[in-house]
């Protein structure tokens, strides 16, 4: 060969095929090259550990104790992150609030994925009148601005669901409402992606083959076509977690999201702007935690997008 270096792509592919990497290994290999994505994973793990391991040092009851004689105390040895407007310890509230915020992100994403994939898959697979009805509906949902809709729904429902007990803990019913509502107002983009993929995949030979051997529609949709469109779904789902955490923060920040005493990073910021001068620790700590989480997840999503793209090549060692 005239040009020994850099190695041409087909050779690189051949070498990967020779070493018999599984799909997961291949994705990880590509993902690893994305330094910011790896940093994102590490910092996300640290954030999750903060929210989980923190519970060993403090209790939820402690995070909800109000003592107005120590309200708005700056960070000190006793209260490392200071205290809020009614004297609650901000450190322990960021720990328990973090659990709720992360949980809201994950479950809202799950709702988003289920609704988005179902609507996209059904519209794309069946086509015709079903497709145009579902897509008109998707379009209508797109036309309603999301934040105002979230605010309306949050206000409407957050007080109506009674508090519930889960894992021995009391959750404000508004947590459930916010998770579902965020999920139900954010699936439209995903539905469009899934539909577009289904439209092209359903014409492929393997789908015709599945039809020929008598496979029913359900197994074709979920067993044959869906696995081939996982990459964009995974990327959307990852970014969906970050968006859900931000949406929760917006709604709770404005006071119509998750109701106290249950803490979230978002509702800890509610009203904090009024103390911007006298008590900056009210917003700095939960604010930085939200930013770090969202940034980490977005970097991971970006890395996954590259790693899952079948067209991206890998330089393996």
């Amino acid at each position, binding site marked *: 060969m005239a040009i020994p270096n850099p190695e041409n792509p087909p050779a690189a592919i051949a070498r990967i095929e020779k070493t018999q990497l599984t799909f997961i290994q291949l994705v990880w290999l590509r993902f690893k090259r994305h330094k910011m994505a790896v940093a994102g994973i590490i910092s996300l793990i640290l954030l999750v550990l903060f929210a989980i391991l923190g519970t060993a040092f403090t209790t939820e009851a402690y995070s909800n104790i109000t003592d107005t004689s120590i309200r708005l105390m700056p960070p000190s040895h006793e209260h490392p992150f200071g205290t809020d407007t009614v004297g609650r310890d901000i450190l322990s509230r960021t720990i328990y609030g973090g659990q709720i915020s992360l949980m809201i992100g994950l479950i809202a994403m799950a709702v988003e994925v289920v609704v988005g994939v179902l609507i996209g898959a059904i519209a794309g697979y069946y086509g015709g009148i079903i497709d145009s009805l579902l897509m008109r509906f998707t379009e209508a949902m797109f036309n309603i601005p999301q934040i105002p809709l979230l605010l309306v729904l949050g*206000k409407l429902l957050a007080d109506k669901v009674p508090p519930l007990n889960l894992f021995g803990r009391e959750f404000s019913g508004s947590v459930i409402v916010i998770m579902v509502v965020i999920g139900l107002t954010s699936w439209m983009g995903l539905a469009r992606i899934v539909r577009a993929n289904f439209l092209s995949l359903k014409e492929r030979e393997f789908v015709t083959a599945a039809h020929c051997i008598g496979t029913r529609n359900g197994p074709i949709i979920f067993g044959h076509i869906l696995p081939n469109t996982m990459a964009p779904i995974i990327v959307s789902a990852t970014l969906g977690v970050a968006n859900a955490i931000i949406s929760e923060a917006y709604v709770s920040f404005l006071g119509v999201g998750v109701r106290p005493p249950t803490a979230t990073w978002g509702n800890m910021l509610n009203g904090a702007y009024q103390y*911007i001068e006298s008590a900056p620790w009210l917003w700095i700590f939960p604010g930085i935690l*939200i930013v770090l989480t969202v940034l980490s997840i977005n970097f991971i999503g970006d890395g996954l997008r590259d790693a899952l793209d079948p067209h991206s090549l890998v330089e393996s060692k």
Partner: protein
Amino acid sequence: MGRYIIRRLLQAIPLLLIISIVIFLLLQSSGDPLATMGGRRTVRPEDRARLARQLGLDKPVYKQYIYWLAGNDWLKIDFDGDGIPETTGTRKGVLRGDFGTSLVSRGKSALSLIGERLPNTLILMIPAEIIMLIFALSIGIYSALRQYTWVDQVVTTGSFIGYSMPIFFIALASMYLFAVNFRKWGLPYLPTVGMFDPKVGKTFGQVVLHMVLPIFSMSVVSVSAYSRYVRSQMLEVNNQDYIRTAHAKGLTDRQVLIGHALKNAAIPIVTLVGIEIPFLLGGAVVTETIFGWPGMGRLFIDHLTRSDTPVVMGILMLISVAVVVCQLITDIVYAWLDPRIRYS
């Protein structure tokens, strides 16, 4: 083209009707506007019944919706509670331009409340959008033309971080730095809340000064998002054959950029701006709340929390109509930017 526009507008009518029904139903069950009407005192049951009757809140939801949509001046309603309808209704309905009377700011029509706030929001949003576009286009194009240099790396990473930032964090942090700490350090500092200093009055200089921080906060997020699109679109356009042709026939880089590349690179920006403008009309709820800007966003959240259906419906319908109109304008601009796109 004319027929296309008419068809699109006709298609929008059922869409807007459905949106209005859904939002109306949601708002009807979202709270009790009568609860706060007595100020600090609780409202007596007989007063409550009388108020509900006079405001039409005792009617079933579908009737309330019809009154909202088409008015009630074509029928008689029972005003004094004796069970006999005797007074002719006064509402004209949205279809005839009457959005009803605010339940919170008594005696003011929803439309006049919106009319008071809309200019404030526009004063903030139009310069904001122009600044965002200028910065996004120049940053995006600059970094695309210098792909993989350190400038490009810094811009790409920076815009990724900026685009992940929640606006409230940027708003609070910039307020803390440029207003609170600059004052503490004795530097010239920026004002934080409101549209003008009441001691000075609503002068041009004051309003501009109060706009700096809100516009900065909104721009950080939007410029980051926009410039990423501009950069990737610019990179794609630069690889096209017609750009090579333009270079080959001896045009300068500047001529190629302005005369050939920019028009195609602008298409995703048109989409983004088309999506964003309607929401700008609705005001940035969070930004306006933090900076105490008396615009549409705060009108919305203040009246939503007090269940003021006519005002909230008015704002949401205004945004929805704006969405439809902006989408149509976007599509028309597409056809102008890219002659290959034709509508029939």
